[in-house]
């Protein structure tokens, strides 16, 4: 048989063997057999010296081509077999991915804390400070400086836990207004603050009353702060906490420490204003009280009411949480049932 034909035959038979080879070992065997130093191709190439000088380069190049093709085929077959082996191994490692993951201990912030933090973040972004004040207050800051002298009828509206005739559990966070105004240096710019905290009322605990609850007080005092600014700010609060699809309406109210005084309602989220049991068919839900700081309050805190003025508002995170999440019993906030505490993780 001519050399060329022999090479061609080696090539064809080699490719067929490689294709049939079903293990890495077998392929390696084929490689050694075909392409090794003692293999037929090497042998064949040795026979080149018997070929005419004219034919030699052609046959030589043909032989090299065949060797390269076989080498490539071996490599390819090797890869295929390796891949198959890996796939087979991985297939054997298949898990039930629906089994639960290993639990990681993680606690939740209290729902009221979430609301307070959210409000703090919004107001911090608008350049407000967060101000703390004592929970055990004196009558002077809690009432007198809020334009609620001893015999004021509005004191009926907030029955108080007194400790002594002059010391009490604060009934609102408003005294922090007075404290902040007393401390503020108005030559350094406006006073913009919010003050969240616990407050106490002499109430019997039931589904809608709690002797302990929370308030967030807000106050802005500067040379030109308007009722329009108050309205805009309250709309921001409502949008931030409830979403911007809700309308805000202001209506007249009465607080001794503000004049004019307003109460802010938002569209009832339960019926979107159509009227339902939640909003007592009004389409509105009362969410906070506010107003322009009463000149007496400014005066008592040593602020010149002919130059400075501003607004104040007070809102109840407990009430917000009840409204926002449909919590129907305020006591849930203070009994700390873990099944309650761990509910509040959703973003909306």
């Amino acid at each position, binding site marked *: 048989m001519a050399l060329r034909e022999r090479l061609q035959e080696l090539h064809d038979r080699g490719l067929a063997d490689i294709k049939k080879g079903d293990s890495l070992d077998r392929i390696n065997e084929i490689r050694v057999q075909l392409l090794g130093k003692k293999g037929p191709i090497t042998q064949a190439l040795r026979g080149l010296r018997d070929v005419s000088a004219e034919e030699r380069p052609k046959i030589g190049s043909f032989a090299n081509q065949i060797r390269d093709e076989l080498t490539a085929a071996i490599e390819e077959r090797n890869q295929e077999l390796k891949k198959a082996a890996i796939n087979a191994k991985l297939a054997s490692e298949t898990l039930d991915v629906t089994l639960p993951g290993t639990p990681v201990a993680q606690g939740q912030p209290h729902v009221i804390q979430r609301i307070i933090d959210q409000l703090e973040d919004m107001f911090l972004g608008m350049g407000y400070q967060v101000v703390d004040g004592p929970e055990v207050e004196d009558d002077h800051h809690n009432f007198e400086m809020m334009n609620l002298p001893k015999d004021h009828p509005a004191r009926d509206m907030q029955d108080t836990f007194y400790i002594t005739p002059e010391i009490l559990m604060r009934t609102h966070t408003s005294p922090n207004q007075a404290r902040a105004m007393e401390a503020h240096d108005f030559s350094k710019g406006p006073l913009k603050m919010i003050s969240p905290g616990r407050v106490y009322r*002499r109430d019997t605990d039931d589904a809608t009353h709690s002797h*302990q609850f929370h308030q967030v007080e807000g106050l802005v005092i500067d040379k030109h702060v308007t009722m329009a600014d108050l309205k805009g700010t309250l709309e921001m609060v409502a949008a931030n906490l409830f979403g911007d699809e809700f309308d805000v309406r202001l209506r007249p109210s009465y607080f001794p420490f503000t004049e004019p005084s307003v109460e802010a309602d938002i569209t009832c989220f339960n019926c979107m204003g159509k009227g339902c049991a939640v909003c007592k068919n009004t389409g509105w839900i009362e969410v906070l009280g506010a107003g322009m700081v009463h000149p007496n309050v400014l005066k008592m805190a040593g602020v010149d009411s002919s130059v400075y003025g501003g607004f104040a508002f007070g809102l109840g995170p407990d009430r917000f949480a009840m409204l926002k999440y449909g919590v129907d019993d305020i006591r849930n906030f203070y009994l700390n049932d*873990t099944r309650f505490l761990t509910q509040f993780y959703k973003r909306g």
Partner: protein
Amino acid sequence: MKVSMDWLNEYLTLDVDPQTLGEKIERTAVEVDQVYKMSDGMSNLVVGETLSVEPHPDSDHLHICQVDVGEDEPLQIVCGAPNVATGQKVIVALPGAWIAGHHKIKKSKMRGVASNGMLCALQEIGFDEKIAPKAYDEGIYILPADSENGSSVFPILGMDDDIVETDLTPNRGDMNSMNGTAWEVGAIYGKTPKMPTFSLNEDGSRKVSDLLQFSVDETLAPTYKMRIVSGVTIQDSPLWLQKRLWEAGMRPINNIVDVTNYIMLTYGQPLHAFDYDKLSSHHIHVRLAYEGEHLTTLDGEDRKLRDSDMVIADDKHAIALAGTMGGLDTEIDDNTTTIAIESAIFDPIKIRKTARFFNLHSEASMRFERGVNKDDNQNALDHAAALMAELGQGQTEQGTGVGSDTPVEPAKVSVTLTRINHVLGTQLTVGQVQTIFDHLNFPTENDGETFNVTVPARRWDIHIEADLFEEVARLYGYDNIPSTLPYGTMTPGALTFKQRIIRDSRRLLEGAGLNQAISYALTTTAKAEQFMMRDSEPTELAFPMSTDHTTARMNLISGLLDDIAYNVARKQKNVALYEQGRVFYREGDAIRPLEVEHIAAAVTGTLTTKTWHAEADMIDFYGIKGIVDLFLHDMGLSEPVHYEATQAHAQMHPGRTADIYVGDQVVGFVGQVHPEVASDYKIPDTYVFELNLQALIDAPHDQQQYEPISKFPDVTRDIAILVDQSVTNADVVALINKRGGAHLAGVQLFDVYEGVHLPAGKKSLAYTLTYRDRQATLVEADVTKAFDKVTAALEKEFDAEIR
């Protein structure tokens, strides 16, 4: 106040539906509780006439009535009312009618006799017990004789009238009257209300000044006047008057008492009617009660008065608790003929205190507390006298007896257009503002900038500029005020260092698996005094509302244990809580407590749940301590933290509690709640810590500095030693660190073993020591040398056996 639309329409022609009016009042003036008709939810109630009334054969109290309801045939209705009789006009609920309480009337049989409907008492068609006339308390209501059979009873009883019920803020006492409400609604709609008129005929032969003398303390009653109407007949009021009263939620009594109430509803001026002939003298005193003086009030209560209560008295004794409740002795009864009508203005604070003390909050006291209109005081008196004379067929004696009559000057308030717009953020014009004052009927002059406003006495709530801002703002409409945000000098909005640490603290503990709790800060004194970290007196409420909440807490743990108890009682076995908040320490003689920020945790059961794949370990000392370690590490404190065993906390397990030190300051404690205390709380084994967060905030904090990462590899050596049980890990680590040499970078305990394979009283501790040199690769021989020194020291100091 329950405002009748029919009545309001006598003042104003409104042509507006009641719901819209309610909404308008709510947006402009005061809250509106509800808009309703007394007939809401009821139907098919008609006038019937009892043609015959026969006793029921099988009953000792039922009657079989044939009732003409305007149909061809009378209806047979069985009725149990004791006052049913032939020839009465009665309220008939036809078959299919709805009556109060959502009851439907059906044809039925009563003891075998067909009954096709029901004869109704007022209470059965929605009248409150407190407003239905007493005469009909025990039976059905009898309608006027001219009522047309078969016609609806609603118009006859005023039940088809729309009622707008306002909820007044304390400053709007003026709206506690129809007049005041009409002024307000007039201002809202830009209309001038027509005030009530009457004609007073002083047709009596006597002068009041001859009939009565007065001694009035003007500080108690700045205005005190009386008229006398004589020769009256006491009887029921006409239906129109009764309707006015019950629509307003008041009960008709008799013509005289009803007039006082009607006039109060009209003018907001409470009146009181005395039986003139029952006065023991005709000298009327307004004075403070004598301490311990007795007065039997109209409700039959014998009241022991205080020397701060105001009374009306004759020469001998108190005859009324001024402005709050009349006295029984001078009450109008069926035989009364001569009426002394009192129209006064009393000190509102005194009234309030008396009403509060005796729990006598009446329609009258409430109006005195919130203010009455001095300008209408005489009108109210005159109108009352005229009406009593008319309805009682009596005569009004001549003149008014005046005990005091202190004039009230109208408030004059000036405000500029610039200020109004400056405060409201509006761009109102002179014309707009003037129109608002005109609509309010406040006489006002302006010079194009300044408004000089004369405020009528009926609006005693207005006396400063800011009050006028409110009038302008609300009548202009809050909806019309633009929405802006404050502008001006920028201010930084940032949490303080303390606030940041407090926030971070919460995140940290949540990350460690604890849920934030907010417990009650007021607890019992016993619980307030548990788990205390320093000496303190309790801060106790003077008048607590419940025995569970009397004292400001001096620790957070007791509240958390209450929370755990609540959970455990509800079958929640795994509870992990923390709380951040204040405790209240009080020095012996201080009145006000010191408020200190604390943070505490309590864990029972496991932090995670056991699954198919992972065990969940029961919390133990080291579990809770690990959380404290994590927490304190993240606080970045400059001084080292260490723990010392303590038996000083009475509520803690004496062998499983450590005080936590930062440097040499105790900042808290950690450990297991004493099993007896846990059992008192009815909770299982619970591990807790409490930290003085304020102390951690105040402690020095490290400045963060980058520490280059060593290029050279660490070398580690393990050592296991056998030591006496009494030798603590802290002792061993301290010694290793002391003798570890310059390159010792860390000591890590990796095994503790105590048990049967060891000699009694011994334990095995195993540590990994890490050596590091930032400048060069450590030489094996150097490490070995350093390690040998540690080994030797351990052998020497603790008699340790190296294993």
